[in-house]
């Protein structure tokens, strides 16, 4: 856990955006002031920063590194976090 090394409110959680979400946000990342919390907390913060993402966000999963994580999963600064909107491969 690296969150202990960051003072609350000063550290930043970087979350990667893909496809339509990156297009709507106008960026491939969203940066959240982060003092600790779960995926659910990150969802709320992203929604506050980018209200236009809300419809897709509700149908999106979160991933850390190369695995999907649930809403109660804690996120810490430095985690490789991504929002995964509904997929359309194949």
């Amino acid at each position, binding site marked *: 856990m690296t969150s202990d090394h960051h003072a609350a409110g000063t550290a930043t959680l970087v979350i*990667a955006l*893909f*496809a*339509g979400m990156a*297009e709507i946000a106008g960026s491939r990342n969203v940066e959240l002031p982060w003092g600790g919390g779960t995926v659910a907390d990150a969802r709320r913060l992203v929604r506050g920063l980018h209200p236009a993402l809300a419809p*897709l966000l509700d*149908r*999106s*999963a979160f*991933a850390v*590194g*190369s*695995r*999907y*994580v*649930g809403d109660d999963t804690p996120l810490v600064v430095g985690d490789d976090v*991504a929002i*995964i*909107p*509904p*997929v*359309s*491969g*194949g």
Partner: protein
Amino acid sequence: MMEHPAGRADGAQGGAVIQREPIDPAVLLAAVGDPAAGGNVLFVGTARGVTDGVITKSLAYEAHGPLARETLDVLRLQALARFSLTACRIVHRLGPVVAGEASVAIAVSAAHRREAFAAAEWLMERIKADVPIWKCEERDDGGRTWVHPVAAGRPGGAA
């Protein structure tokens, strides 16, 4: 987390691939050949040039690389175990794919055809639901749209 079928002729290496290069389905099919296999199924998803009368000039695919590779690997190993496959290969394309080209190809082999068909259909269902790859449709009229199906649940299933 997953079952690794031991002693398969078909190792995990090279089993599931994401690539920018065009897909050669014949290579995939040849790779799953096995003396114990009687049924071999190859599915190739191609970019449609015409959908309901609307002309699509080309598609572009984007992926969360590490998560997409991991998810494809897991699905592949699950398919090997669940359908008693002798071999399984998956390739998904990234970047621009012009109409008529393959965007995805899967090849499976099994002792009997029913398992091979069932595995191929199951893999395509799961790939379309869980693998973080997105399609952008570039239409003939210049417009482009990232596709995020409304009917779909959250990717990754229960996670």
